[in-house]
């Protein structure tokens, strides 16, 4: 059973809450950065919330994910605690990685998040290995491997999917195609017209979905997860979406137009669309939506406060910490 079903009224409320949580979380992180309270860099997925939530909703507790440098959304949708994530970003001892990983490396292996990865395509073979281990242990947990359109042109993409395909491993490879690998437009950098089409080469199902439609992402993922869990092997989903913010904090947006960004934001925003369709179908009332927005805003504010109150990282036990 999926943990949430956004196509039902009850599930939709939960999915909407998750999507708002991701957006507000990232807006909070951005604000902290702009105020100079958070150092390093960050990669925001604002505009891509429907991919993270549509996929994670289709999983069961215990299923595993691997994520990317732009992984806040995946991690939150898969059950991460916003305050513990913020503690990590704010370099607190209570963070997921005790301040040693930061934004790009949120992990909770025991909780099924095998880690966000700073290397493009770096987690793809890891996902295959986790699925191999799961099968050797006799389990039926599924691993979702999130990766970006840029990763589809790395060698690891090929090696990981080939391995998963020849061994029928329970991996759902989810390409979050947000149109750009940093500044390289996906259609300029990707031969063959689509990432999903490449599935044919491995003899596995490949499916391109509207990544800004959470229900559509959910339904496609649900089927791919079902078949993976039942031993039918891996699959590839390409979810088309768009990132509103720059690649990272250094991005001056020289490779795209403001009109393009505005079009995606104004006409295809995943939250606007989801709320619009819920109101239209009558599944959720305006009051409920307002309530969710308010609660999420408050919960993120509380999470920031909690993270700031946590003890800072300490250099005292760094020595020798590279080894278990």
């Amino acid at each position, binding site marked *: 059973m999926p943990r949430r079903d956004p196509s039902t009224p009850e599930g939709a409320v939960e999915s909407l809450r998750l999507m708002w949580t991701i957006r507000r979380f990232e807006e909070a992180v951005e604000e902290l950065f702009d105020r100079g309270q958070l150092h390093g860099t960050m990669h925001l997925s604002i505009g891509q919330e429907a991919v993270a939530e549509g996929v994670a909703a289709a999983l069961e507790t215990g299923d*595993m994910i691997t994520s990317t440098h732009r992984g806040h959304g995946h991690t939150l949708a898969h059950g991460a605690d916003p305050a513990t994530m913020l503690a990590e970003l704010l370099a607190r001892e209570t*963070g*997921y*990685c*005790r*301040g*040693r*990983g930061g934004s790009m*490396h949120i*992990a*909770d*292996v*025991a909780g099924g998040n*095998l*880690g966000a*990865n*700073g*290397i493009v395509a*770096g987690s*793809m*073979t*890891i*996902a*295959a*290995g*986790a*699925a*191999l*281990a*799961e099968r*050797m*242990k006799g389990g039926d947990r599924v691993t979702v491997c999130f990766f970006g359109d840029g990763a589809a042109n790395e*060698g*690891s993409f090929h*090696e*990981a999917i*080939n*391995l998963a395909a*020849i061994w029928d491993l329970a991996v759902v490879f989810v390409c979050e195609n947000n149109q750009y690998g940093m500044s390289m437009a996906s259609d300029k950098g990707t031969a063959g017209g689509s990432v999903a089409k490449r599935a044919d080469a491995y003899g596995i199902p490949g499916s391109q979905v509207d990544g800004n439609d959470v229900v559509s992402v959910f339904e496609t993922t649900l089927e791919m997860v079902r078949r993976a869990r039942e031993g039918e092997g891996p699959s590839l989903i390409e979810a088309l979406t768009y990132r509103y913010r720059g690649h990272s904090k250094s991005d001056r947006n020289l490779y795209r137009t403001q009109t393009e960004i505005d079009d995606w934001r104004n006409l295809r925003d995943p939250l606007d669309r989801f709320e619009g369709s819920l109101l239209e179908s009558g599944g959720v009332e305006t009051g409920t939506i307002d309530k969710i927005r308010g609660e999420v805003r408050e919960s993120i504010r509380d999470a920031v406060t909690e993270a700031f109150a946590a003890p800072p990282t300490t250099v005292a036990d760094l020595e020798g*910490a*590279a*080894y*278990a």
Partner: protein
Amino acid sequence: MPETTTYAKALNTALAGLLAGDERVFLMGEDVGVYGGAFGVSDGLLDRFGEDRVRDTPISEDAIVGAGVGAALTGMLPIVEIQFSDFVVNAMDPLINQAAKLHFMYGGRANVPLVIRAPGGGGTGAAAQHSQSLEAWFAHIPGLKVVLPATVQDAHDLLIAAVRDPNPVVFLEHKLLYKTEGHFEATDDVENPVAKIGESRVIRHGSDLTIAAYSIMTIRALQAAEQLADDGIDVEVIDLRTVRPLDIGPVRESVMKTGRLVVAHEAPIPVGVGAEVVAGVVESNALDYLLAPVRRVGAMDVPMPYAKDLEQAVIPQTGDIVDAVKEVIKS
């Protein structure tokens, strides 16, 4: 009863014992199954343990090591074989950016107990891309352990120790050692390794000069010591056994006794393990005991050539160690 066997057979015995003793252990790599591994190390294991646990992979080093990382991260004890250590270069991302980092990067809350076995070294006429000694490269990375057994017994004992270690271990076997015979006692207890990673060992006692070496150069150092004994030079030989962590203590103690040091490895000298050993000595009060400049013995600073005479010239031989020792003694 102690007996003798070969380095390859000792590794095979260790693998069999590990596979039999712990269902989390599996072996994965190119041609490790019916072929028995390019050097025969996994001979017979497929029949005994089945294709799930002695797992042939496509030629995909990145995926072999990466999948090993994923499996190790989620509770297995994978042993992956990379057919030649040169091909680990194809898997540097999963090795360096993933395996070595995850424990630390995830705040100490995850482990990667992965062993990467790979044959290294020259002398087989396999030329530049199948003959390298890359240990210094791996040893430079915090989070990795790097083990290079010289003896038949160590090949067995250190492999068990590597699998029992909660960290990623690069286990480099020398191709010319596979067929060497040596004293061997197998242990059925694969839970409690008799050897410990990070312990060097004095394997020949002497008073005039210390040679620190590892892998095949330990064997050549012992041969050099025998020749030098005929000339009245009494050499102490230390087998480093692992270069990361490097157990420098016994080298310092030995130098404080002999006053002279030669470090020998098959890898080229620049930025190599030899420099690290020398630094480890001179950064201690063993410096005060040195009676002569130290010497490093290593490969000529070129890629490995194919022609036999050229290859022999590039690889440091027993005679090169003898010459180095004599020079240090003279100076």
